[in-house]
């Protein structure tokens, strides 16, 4: 349990995003290519891929190469063979459909065609009479007509009820998504309570509905109004949605539609789960499955150092870390992504030993520490003090043999230096930069800098310049041989 929690804690937000994006891409590809032949071939490619992995793990190098070649060739062949299907998926859809849309099934589309065509005829004042038989046989009730047996389409419906068409006055019978018969004569209703606006077409529709379980759609040629009749019930329809619901209820597609929706939801849910499992498996296989080791040299960082304390000596400035983790994580890992921080707030003057462990090493998630070299760092800290030190001139080069540099005065003779106590206590003299003797011909003065070594020594206000006044006398005796 603790391992699982540790593992979950080691996951980065990038990991979740990585998995999420790939699940989404895979799921969308499935949704877009669902029903196409391409999607049926993909499992074969997956099988080949698994086979390649098995061959590789079994040490069958040539076989795994061959399968890899086959997969590469298959991918190319699939793109060429199914280029039209691929193109249709990406061309016919807009970005929203590509990212979010779910394509609807074809069997629901026939009701859409009927509803759409009905209202289009109503708008254009084209009279229409459409019969949708249910369970009961109606051949004994209807008369005449011509067998049609054509696939239902908007154009077909409009052309049948076009007023120049010889069969436009009769009714047409629709079974499923096919027009089975046209120009059919229906029995007229004998009811006296019908409104005066209902004409022969309405009376015929009602007549059939009264004597059967058919649903009849009537479009008034005069008003363009759409009326649906079933049994004794007459209902004026205001919009396409209402008509579609009635048609679905009549054909049983309402239930079918619901069950189809559930079926779709189940299918999409299952495929989403499969995609999630697949991508997660691949992700863990790639990023977590293959562990590797990496050695990184990381500089040490010191924080919370006390005021007036300085590090004057360190056993090391860098630490070598042996790290474990997945191949991609370690490949992208550089020393800049790792921090080793030593807090010196509890340090005292003198030698301090600090252990370098996972507690003071900041590693990116997913990377774990195997070994630290060295595992401890010795730091020598010291307080800062100020001290007055005498200055000595550092003459260099060669003075003319006829001259003697008899004396020199330095102003100031001493300067105040601050630095670590331990270092300053060992220093008795500060030396100037080299003063060239070659250029000296007579007495004079010049400004020279005092060298501050080691670099931890500081001079307040950086005033490390002194003035040297020197006296040169001529040699009385013969020059040196």
């Amino acid at each position: 349990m603790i391992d699982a929690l540790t593992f979950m804690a080691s996951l980065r937000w990038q990991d979740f995003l990585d998995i999420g994006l790939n699940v989404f891409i895979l799921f969308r590809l499935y949704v877009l290519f669902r029903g196409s032949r391409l999607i049926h071939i993909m499992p074969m490619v997956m099988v080949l891929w698994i086979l390649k992995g098995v061959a590789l793990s079994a040490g069958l190098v040539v076989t795994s190469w061959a399968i890899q070649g086959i997969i590469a060739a298959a991918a190319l062949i699939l793109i060429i063979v199914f280029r039209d299907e691929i193109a249709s998926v990406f061309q016919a859809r807009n970005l929203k459909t590509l990212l979010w849309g779910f394509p609807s099934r074809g069997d629901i589309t026939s009701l859409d065609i009927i509803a759409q065509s009905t209202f289009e005829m109503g708008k254009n004042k084209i009279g229409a009479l459409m019969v949708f038989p249910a369970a009961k046989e109606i051949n004994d009730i209807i008369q005449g007509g011509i067998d049609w047996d054509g696939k239902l389409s908007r154009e077909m419906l409009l052309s049948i009820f076009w007023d120049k068409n010889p069969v436009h006055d009769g009714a047409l019978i629709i079974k499923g998504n096919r027009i089975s018969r046209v120009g059919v004569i229906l029995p007229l209703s004998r009811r006296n309570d019908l409104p005066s606006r209902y004409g022969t077409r309405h009376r015929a529709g009602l007549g059939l509905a009264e004597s059967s379980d058919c649903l009849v759609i009537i479009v008034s040629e005069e008003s363009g109004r759409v009326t649906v009749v079933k049994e004794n019930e007459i209902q004026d329809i205001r919009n396409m949605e209402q008509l579609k619901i009635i048609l679905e209820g009549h054909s049983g597609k309402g239930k079918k539609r619901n069950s189809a929706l559930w079926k779709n939801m189940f299918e999409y849910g299952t495929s989403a789960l499969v995609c999630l499992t697949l991508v997660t498996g691949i992700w863990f296989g790639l990023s977590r499955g293959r562990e590797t080791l990496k050695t990184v040299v990381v500089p040490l960082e010191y924080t919370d150092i006390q005021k007036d304390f300085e590090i004057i000596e360190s056993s090391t400035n860098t630490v070598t870390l042996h790290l474990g983790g997945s191949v991609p994580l370690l490949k992208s890992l550089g020393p800049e992504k790792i921090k080793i921080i030593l807090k010196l707030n509890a340090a005292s003057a003198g030698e301090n030993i600090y252990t370098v462990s996972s507690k003071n090493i900041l590693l990116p998630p997913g990377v774990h520490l195997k070994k630290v070299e060295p595992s401890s760092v010795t730091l020598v800290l010291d307080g800062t003090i100020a001290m007055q030190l005498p200055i000595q001139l550092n003459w260099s080069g060669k003075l003319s043999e006829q001259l003697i540099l008899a004396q020199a005065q330095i102003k100031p003779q001493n300067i105040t230096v601050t630095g670590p106590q331990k270092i300053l206590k060992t220093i008795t003299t500060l030396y100037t930069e080299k003063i060239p003797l070659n250029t000296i011909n007579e007495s004079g003065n010049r400004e020279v800098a005092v060298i501050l070594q080691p670099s931890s020594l500081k001079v307040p206000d950086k005033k490390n310049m002194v003035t040297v006044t020197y006296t040169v006398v001529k040699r009385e005796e013969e020059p040196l041989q």
Partner: protein
Amino acid sequence: MNTLKLTLLIVQTFLLVYCLPIRAGEIQEVTPAAMVLSHAVMCESIEDFKPQNPAIVFSIDLGKVFCFTTFEQIKETTHIYHKWFQVDRLVSKKKLTLKPPQWSTISSMQLRMADRGPWYVEITDKDDTLLQRLRFSISD
């Protein structure tokens, strides 16, 4: 013969003490009550118990450099030290005997090619009290 040399040395020391001026930069740091360091100088050579060509820079070609010191008011035989430092490293510590009432002592350093750079000689009494520090350089 020895007595004559000693007498001569005392006389010369006396003359040096009163005739040679104290060089600038050679400030006496500690003056013990018992004896007085009256003269201290770095020089190229010693001739007739006199420091020759006192200076603060010496050519390595000289081959040798001398530290000359004179003490007064010596009450009893004692000794002092000439400590030779190259930069801050003690190179040599020479114990020199002083006898009452005045005494001049000399120590020297044989120069090698690696001896270029800043040097100083610390003159201390028998209790290691610093009496004076003479700073000089060995040049090309």
